[in-house]
């Protein structure tokens, strides 16, 4: 069995003498990099179809698996949103749609999109594929655990989907699952539905913990020679910090889901107060529903940043590469990511302003919420300053980046409205809230995902996605998304409540008919536009233009593998040695407009490059 493992090929220390010539005045130790501290990683190479593609331990394959499964759940979430918009725009058009169904679709759409689509896609998909490549590791540090992580996610999705087919259907309590109504009769899916939801969440958290430990230790302990933390691409910083948040926030969700299941199955009263139903006192009593809200939002708010921070990181890299400029204020960007991550643990109760809190708590959480706008705004300024006077390539990737910045600023500004208690109270539970969070954590991260797909597809598949189809995809999505969510702000201002199945003959019904129809039509269009991407991918895999090595002329390590797409083990015989940060674009005096991370200083000693 000895050929199964590449046994301890220790890294050949590259002495400075053997590295490229360099100009006059180059000191011999200019290219010095500390010797290897860790032996080369011992990898298990699969041989059969099953160990290579199904129970695979290669982080890149696991990343693609995560990506495909998350996309599948995302499409389900998309179809659910179509059904909801069909009901809202054209009440009664779908004959089978009852109020119960509507609530179930709202709930499942929310939970699927936030947890099973965005989180899994950013951390499981991009994290697995990019972290080892970007930090110069052969694989994740615990490949077996990583494989189990994906399959736990698979079971979690299967359990979630199973809830569509149990008696009573999936839970319809809203994605926040607030007790007591979640588990009381009368709420759709209050039987098997909510139990499967809790079980699925617990499985997701368990699976994610295994993956998260991998991401963290790979970044902390398995970087290649020369790769310091402050030379890592911001993508890795974003995913790393998001993973830290997840490791500390998911426990609250796990505990909440467990206690909720016990309330349902064993009849405990953790979250259940004394309840009168049709004049009769239920068996429950003495519990605290607010406790669940605290547990849920202690997870729920960091969750927003678990989605947003990887998006921030990825967008920084995309903008820098496609504007051919170094990222403006790299260190500021890193500290902003870390600062946002830390602050995100102190803002959760701004989701609970109307739940009944001590006003001083509202004051405290409003303050912390507004403080978090500071590092976030810094990031936006830095993206704009990176674009400023850049040599911008107006390709599909850049369009998605620009779309992201605009959308994110939009959603961020409405966040300032909702962060203030006195403004939030009238806007709470209206369509303004729906518009806000869809802009800021729905559409904006989605734009990043799309940009990232167009950017990294040539690496994963070796071919360029079609630019023509990509531009159609972008413009339909961008304009369509604005057509959906801009009018929604207005609906919120005039007071239309969210989560209502139908407005019946309230004044809202008559005055908003046209607008609701328009929003629904736009939603159908935007949803359909996403299938352009799927078509584009299938077409490209067959007939796309071959990309070759480093097609975007980027600097970071993932483009510098000996083979494209990278093979298991990533780097062939020898690990890369890093000499600089990944943002040396358009350096004055340099031969090309980019200097890769592995270029030793002696080769570019005649340029104006700064030491990083």
């Amino acid at each position, binding site marked *: 069995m000895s050929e199964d493992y590449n046994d301890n090929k220790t890294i050949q220390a590259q002495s400075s003498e053997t590295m490229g010539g360099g100009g006059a005045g180059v000191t011999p130790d200019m290219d010095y990099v500390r010797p290897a*501290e860790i032996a080369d990683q011992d990898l298990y190479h699969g041989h059969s179809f099953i160990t290579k593609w199904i129970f695979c331990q290669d982080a890149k394959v696991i990343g693609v698996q995560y990506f495909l499964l998350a996309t599948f759940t995302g499409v389900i979430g998309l179809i659910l949103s179509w059904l909801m918009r069909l009901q809202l725009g054209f009440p009664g058009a779908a004959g089978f749609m009852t109020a119960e169904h509507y609530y179930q679709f709202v709930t499942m759409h929310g939970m699927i999109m936030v947890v099973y689509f965005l989180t899994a896609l950013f951390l499981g998909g991009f994290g697995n594929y990019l972290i080892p490549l970007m930090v110069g590791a052969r694989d994740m540090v615990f490949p077996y655990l990583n494989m189990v992580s994906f399959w736990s996610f698979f079971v979690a999705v299967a359990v979630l989907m199973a809830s569509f087919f149990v008696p009573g259907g999936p839970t319809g309590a809203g994605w926040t699952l607030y007790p007591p109504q979640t588990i009381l009769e009368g709420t759709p899916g209050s039987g098997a539905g909510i139990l499967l939801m809790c079980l699925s969440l617990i499985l997701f958290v368990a699976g994610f913990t295994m993956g998260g430990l991998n991401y963290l*230790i790979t970044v902390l302990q398995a970087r290649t020679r020369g790769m310091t933390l402050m030379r890592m691409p911001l993508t890795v910083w974003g995913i790393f910090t998001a993973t830290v948040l997840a490791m500390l926030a998911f426990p609250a969700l796990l505990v909440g889901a467990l206690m909720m299941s016990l309330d349902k199955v064993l009849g405990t009263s953790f979250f259940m107060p004394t309840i009168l139903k049709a004049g009769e006192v239920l068996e429950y009593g003495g519990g605290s529903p607010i406790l669940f809200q605290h547990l849920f939002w202690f997870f729920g708010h960091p969750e927003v940043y678990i989605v947003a921070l990887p998006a921030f990181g990825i967008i920084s890299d995309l903008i820098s590469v496609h504007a051919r400029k170094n990222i403006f204020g790299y260190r500021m960007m890193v500290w902003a990511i870390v600062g946002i991550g830390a602050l995100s643990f102190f803002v959760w109760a701004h989701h609970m302003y109307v739940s009944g809190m001590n006003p001083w708590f509202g004051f405290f959480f409003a303050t912390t919420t507004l403080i978090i706008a500071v590092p976030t705004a810094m990031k936006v300024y830095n993206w704009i300053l990176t674009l400023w006077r850049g040599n911008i390539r107006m390709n599909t990737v850049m369009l998605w980046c620009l779309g992201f910045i605009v959308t994110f600023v939009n959603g961020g500004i409405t966040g300032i409205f909702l962060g203030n208690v006195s403004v939030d109270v009238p806007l709470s539970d209206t369509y303004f809230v729906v518009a806000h969070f869809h802009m800021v954590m729905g559409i904006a991260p989605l734009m990043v995902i799309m940009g990232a797909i167009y950017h990294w597809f040539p690496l994963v598949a070796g071919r360029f996605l079609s630019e023509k189809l990509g531009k159609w995809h972008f413009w339909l999505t961008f304009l369509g998304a604005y057509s959906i969510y801009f009018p929604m702000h207005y609906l919120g201002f005039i007071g239309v409540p969210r989560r209502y199945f139908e407005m019946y003959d309230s004044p809202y019904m008559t005055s908003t008919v046209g607008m609701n129809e328009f929003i629904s039509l736009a939603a159908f269009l935007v949803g359909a536009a996403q299938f352009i991407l799927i078509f584009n991918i299938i077409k490209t895999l067959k007939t796309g233009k071959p990309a070759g090595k480093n097609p975007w002329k980027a600097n970071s390590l993932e483009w510098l593998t000996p083979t494209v797409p990278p093979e298991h083990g990533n780097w062939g015989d020898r690990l890369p040695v890093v000499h600089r940060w990944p943002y040396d674009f358009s350096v004055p005096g340099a031969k090309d407009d980019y200097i890769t991370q592995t270029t030793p200083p002696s080769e570019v000693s005649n340029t104006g490059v700064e030491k990083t």
Partner: protein
Amino acid sequence: MSEPKLEGIELKPGFKGMAEDTGSDQTMFKGVHWGKAMMWIFLLSDTFIFSCFLIAYMKGRGSTPVEWPNPSEVFALDAFGVPVPLLLIAIMTFVLITSSGTMALAVKYGYEKNRKMCGWLVLATAIGGLTFVGMQAFEWSKLIHEGVRPWENPFGAPQFGSFFFMITGFHGTHVSIGVIFLFIYAYKVFAGHYDQQKRGWFTSMKGNYVEIEILGLYWHFVDLVWVFIFAFFYLW
């Protein structure tokens, strides 16, 4: 899994050393095994789980309108006809903390490559853990016999039973998982898997005595959590 090689790298003590390690390439925790770093971070995450449980318990105990039972009466055990408060819990705690001591010695002998001593001490730790779980099962059955259920109890607030069974159950699950692993590792030590660097059954990674220390970290954590549960549940 890789052995750290730190020749030619001078490690500085204190805050300065920490800052230097953080700013350096390759690893942040110099010479620390990947699995060990992973266990520390996992335990941090697990700390948050138990904190959530205990905070929920405090909130639940504070908000229930019915009076909370007196733990020294509920958890008393008759010894020679005299009810002694917390007698069983004291013995359980003693056994668990003692098993932490044997675990620490097992780690020491493991690094000294003293296969026999290490194996016996891991086995002793496993037996200590098993005794703890056994006594917990006895305590549970005693309370159930007295009529305490997750949804009610004859002594007062129903949340008492809910939180008691949930939190000690969750901790007991941790101990049980630890015991299973301790038995497996005891077998692996006696069979010489760590001396021969035999590859693992699932992970196919080479065996190394550091695994004993990693399991030890988990075991000490489980004991530490028990101290908090003891303080919050039995003494408050």
